[in-house]
Structures are given as structure tokens and as C-alpha cells.
């Protein structure tokens, strides 16, 4: 088991190196840079910048250096000083910006994942063991609605509904009176109240998927011979179900743990914007639009890294759950 984990960690290094290059290139790909974006914005508001002024800005931000040099400096600062660079757009260190948002982003993704599992896995088990029953059809229907409805739309509608019926504004993380208040029990409760809606909405689409996956996997497993063996042995249906087929059917779901972060960033940006939640998604969107390259690059880099680590964690979890993975494949 330890050897397995060590082996997996070593393979991470080249992957992370590739990710860093890709992050950097993706950010550099669009024509123009922070300075041209600035000049363009100024021109929009009627101010023309002279050529030497533009050159001065370019030099000041280090944008005159060749690509590979900028990449190396970025990596060097990141690896040795933990310094992710400077956000032109916010005029603040990238580290500070991310420190405010990454914990919240992770907390929301993990909490929404656990929430969606807690809902979807029991429903999937019920649907599979009561295939074609009325409730199976109802859950299937709800699951497809969850899959097919865009999250931001649900967010808008629900936020509006909650506000008009209860007068509580579910936007942001805190109600206005708590934003600058020191931490207190009330503030915590207020934050949790604000988190319910985003968790629910972000969990919604993955809940639909997880129900489908769980139902299909379990239906497959229920036909397997080992289930019939267990039944023939005289095990009770509940014990049998939970010990054998459910354990098998959950494994493919566990293996998707690593994907929650990119999902949160891409799919849930709109939800976060609509609900004014300060996760990294909206930050990344604005950074890319403004060509705020160090910020954008760092976000892509960090989220990819977290994804790779997430995948590693799910693989380790799988190895713990499934002896065939733990002992390295099927021996003949």
C-alpha cells in the first residue's frame, strides 16, 4: 500500500511540470497583454497613450522579457519563495487574493460533493433495488431535471423566490451587518444560512449524475454471481446489499473525486456570480478577460494541482476499498 502511494506520488512530478507549462501558455496565447489591455481601456475612455509611455509600462511589468524567461521567473518565485506574482488588475499580490478564495472554494466543493453523495447514493440504491417502481421513475425524472437545468438559472429563480417569500437575501456569504463584524456565533449561523443555497445548487447537477451512475452500477452488480452466492448463503437482503454490491458500485463514483474542482470552476462560475459568492471561478473569469496573467496562470495552476492531488486521493481511496487495485492487478 505504501509502495503504491509512493509510486503514485513520483508520477505526479512530471504531470505537475506539464500543467505549469500549459497554464502559462494558455494565459499567454491570446494576443496582447496587460499593457495593451490598459492602453485599450484608456483609449475607450478617450485618453491616448504615447508609444514611450507604453514601452515604459511594458518594461515596468517585465513584459518585454522573452516568454521562457518570464516562465522561469514565475516558476522560480513560486517554488522557492511561494510567491505567485502580482495581480495587475487588483494591484495586490496574487497570494493574498487566492488566500481569500481558495479555502472557500474548496470548502464549497467538498461540502457540495458530500451533500450530493449523501443524497444521491441512497437514492441510487433505492432506484436500483426497486427498478421500474413509481419512486424509481420519480427519482429518475428529478435527476434528469437536475442534469438538464442550468445551475445559474436555478440560482436566480431560487434566490428570487427566497427573497420575495422570506425577505432573506441569500446573496453573498454574509448579511450586510456581519460583513465586517468580528467572528461570532451569529455570524457563523448567518454564513451557514447563506451557504445552503449555493451548496444545494452546485450539488444539484452532480446529484443527478451520481444517481444515474449509482443506479446503473448497482443494477450491473446485482446480476453478478457473488450476489446470488451471498443470498444462497442465507444472508439477509440488507446486509448482503450493503456488504457486497453497494461496495462495488460505489468505487467508480469514488474515482471521480478528483474532478470536482475543475467542475466547480467551469460549470459553477455562473452560479457563484449570480449568488455573489467569492470563489475562484469568478476571479479566474475576470482575470482572463483582463489578461491579468499571473493571477489567471496561478489560478489555473493551483486548481489543476488540486485536481491532480484529488485524483491521487481518490486512487488511494480506491486502493483501500478494492484489493485488486491494492495488490497490483489480477494474478493468474
Amino acid at each position: 500500500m505504501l509502495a503504491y502511494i509512493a509510486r503514485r506520488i513520483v508520477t505526479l512530478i512530471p504531470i505537475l511540470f506539464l500543467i505549469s507549462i500549459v497554464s502559462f501558455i494558455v494565459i499567454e496565447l491570446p494576443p496582447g497583454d496587460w499593457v495593451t489591455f490598459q492602453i485599450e481601456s484608456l483609449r475607450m475612455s478617450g485618453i491616448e497613450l504615447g508609444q514611450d509611455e507604453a514601452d515604459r509600462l511594458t518594461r515596468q511589468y517585465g513584459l518585454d522579457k522573452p516568454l521562457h524567461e518570464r516562465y522561469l521567473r514565475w516558476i522560480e518565485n513560486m517554488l522557492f519563495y511561494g510567491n505567485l506574482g502580482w495581480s495587475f488588475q487588483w494591484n495586490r499580490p496574487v497570494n493574498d487574493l487566492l488566500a481569500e478564495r481558495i479555502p472557500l472554494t474548496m470548502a464549497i466543493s467538498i461540502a457540495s460533493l458530500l451533500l450530493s453523495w449523501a443524497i444521491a447514493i441512497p437514492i441510487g440504491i433505492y432506484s436500483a433495488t426497486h427498478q421500474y417502481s413509481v419512486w424509481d421513475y420519480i427519482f429518475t425524472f428529478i435527476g434528469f431535471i437536475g442534469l438538464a437545468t442550468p445551475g445559474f438559472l436555478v440560482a436566480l429563480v431560487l434566490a428570487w423566490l427566497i427573497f420575495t417569500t422570506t425577505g432573506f437575501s441569500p446573496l453573498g456569504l454574509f448579511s450586510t451587518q456581519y460583513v465586517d463584524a468580528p467572528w461570532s456565533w451569529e455570524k457563523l449561523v448567518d454564513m451557514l444560512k447563506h451557504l445552503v443555497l449555493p451548496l444545494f445548487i452546485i450539488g444539484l447537477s452532480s446529484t443527478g449524475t451520481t444517481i444515474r451512475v449509482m443506479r446503473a452500477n448497482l443494477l450491473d452488480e446485482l446480476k453478478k454471481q457473488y450476489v446470488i452466492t451471498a443470498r444462497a448463503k442465507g444472508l439477509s437482503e440488507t446486509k448482503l446489499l450493503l456488504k457486497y454490491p453497494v461496495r462495488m458500485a460505489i468505487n467508480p463514483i469514488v474515482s471521480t473525486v478528483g474532478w470536482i474542482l475543475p467542475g466547480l470552476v467551469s460549470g459553477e462560475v455562473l452560479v457563484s456570480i449570480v449568488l455573489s459568492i467569492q470563489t475562484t471561478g469568478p476571479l479566474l473569469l475576470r482575470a482572463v478577460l483582463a489578461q491579468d496573467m499571473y493571477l489567471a496562470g496561478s489560478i489555473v495552476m493551483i486548481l489543476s494541482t488540486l485536481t491532480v492531488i484529488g485524483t491521487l486521493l481518490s486512487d488511494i481511496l480506491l486502493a483501500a476499498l478494492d484489493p485488486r487495485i491494492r495488490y497490483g492487478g489480477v494474478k493468474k
Partner: protein
Amino acid sequence: MTTTPTNDKLIEVRDLRTYFYLYEGVVKAVDGVSFEIRQGRSLGVIGESGCGKSVTAQSIMRIAPEPPAKHVGGEILLHLGRDGNGEVVDMLKLDPHGDRIRALRWKEIAMIFQEPMTSFSPLFTIGNQIGEAIQLHLPGLSKKQVRERTIDLLGRVGIPQPKRLIDAYPHQLSGGMRQRAMIAMALSCNPRLLIADEPTTALDVTIEAQILELIATLQQEFNMALMYISHDLAVVSEMSDEIMVMYLGSVMEQAETGEIFNNPLHPYTQALWRSIPRIEGGQDRLVPISGTLPSPYNLPKGCPFYTRCEHRMPGICDAARPPMIEVSPNHKVSCFLYKQE
């Protein structure tokens, strides 16, 4: 062995009908099967794939998936108690999820399956899965005693180093070893009837011979009755005192092994016998059975073998089911060619 049992019946199956209600139609997988097995005796069940052998076995333990399966008729009488004077339960009348039937499964009737690859869950050690059955049916035993019993069983079925391999996962064993472990699991609670559903079909020939010998030896040792299911005639004849020939959910012929080999009566049995390659007789040519197999959703009203039978009599054989008649003591056949003595 001081007294001979007044009644040595173990299980009586009477007119068993197990149908599958599927979207495409109704499959009459078992359609009026009757037989009985006496204590310590062995019954071989033979027939082409799909004729209802496995469903018959699953019905006896009530482990056919209900739904789609439904036992629409018949009774399966299990005689409890070794002296044959115990209670008689009809397995078909019990709740398939109830405590009563769960206590009877594996304790009275255990089963080994065709697929040694998949009959164990890959997630638990074989020791765990065998121990689970022991704990369930012999609840007085301590963890240590369960483990010792498991190791002893693994040794008896010929697994080398049972103390070590008790902690092996199924994928770490070969197919033959896994089937041995399955046999150990089946014997773990001293069942009175062992059902072996094509246990060697997935194994290669040398391993097959070893497993067959093992089952035959253990049947004596554990004093069990055996229901041995196979599509392989040679295997069935080696393993059984009596043979039952099935075709499309019905029993065609049933007799003692020697009798049915020397004197096959049903045209289907005769065709099956002709299809065995016989090296010593100079004829090593397989004679396939000609004719078309009727759709399982729509079985003919008359004899199920009518479409392929060499001796079919139009107007008689396709008009009604031939009744099962006993042409000589213990030799029964379902065919209009024969008359009750």
C-alpha cells in the same frame, strides 16, 4: 448407523413451474418438473444450455430473482432431520426474504456455481466469505473457532497452505483453487444436499478431473446428497446414481445411470447419447441433433421435442403433452412411443 431410516427422502420436487415474466414475454424456464432425491444419493441433471437446469436448482433454494421469476405452481418439499422423520417444509410456501428460508439455505442445501471467477466477491478474503456463512448458521462459535474451521475446510478441499491462503483475495487464486474454496464454503455448515451447477465448465480438463474427484470423495465423507448439473454426459454419468434428462423446461426421461445408458428410451436421450464422441467404437463423429429449437416465449402445446424428433407422430405428439410414465421400476419417460406396463 444402527437403524435404517424409515423414510430417507430428502427433497421432493412436484410439478415445479418457474416462469420468467419479461418485457418480451413469458419464459417457461421450468414447466412441470418432478423428481426426488434421497439422503446420500446423487442425481445428475443433463440437458442442453437453456433447458432450465440452473433455474430448477435456484428454485430449490428460492434464489431465482423474484421478479422476474415467479413460481407459478408445484411444491418443493424438504424433509428436515437426519432420521427422515422430521418436519417437512414446502420451500415454495416460504417468504423468499424471510428468516425461515434464510436459516435453511446453506445449512440444509448448499450450492456451487459455474463461474469460480465471480462467485466470490472480489472485495473480501475467501476466509471472510467462508467465515460469514459459518457464523450465520453456527452462531455459537467464537471468531477463533470459525477461523480454525475455515482453515480445516480449506485443507480438506486440497488448498495448499490453508493457514496462509485463508487471507487471500479471490483474484490471487487460480480458477481451480477458487472452485476448491467455493466447495469449502459450500461444505462449511455440513449441508445435507449439495447442488453443483456445472462447477467444472469454466475449468480446463485436468483441473476438471480433480474437482470431480474431490466432490465425489467429499460427498461420501460428509454423507451428503448431490444434485449434479451438467451438459456433459460423461461427467454426469460419473457423478450420479440417477440421471434426469431435461429439455426446454421439462423432464424427458429419468432412470438409474446404468439403465439409462444401456436402454435410453426417449428419442431426445437417444440423440444425446449418439452425440457423444466414442473413440473405442470407431465412431468419433458427433451427430448433431437436427431441427429447429422452438422460441422459449412460445413453447408448443405438445411435446417440446416435437420439432426435432425423428419419431414424431403428427396429430398425437403435437396435440398434447405426453405424460410421464414408468415403463419399468424407476425408469420414467415422457413420450407417446411408450405405454404404461
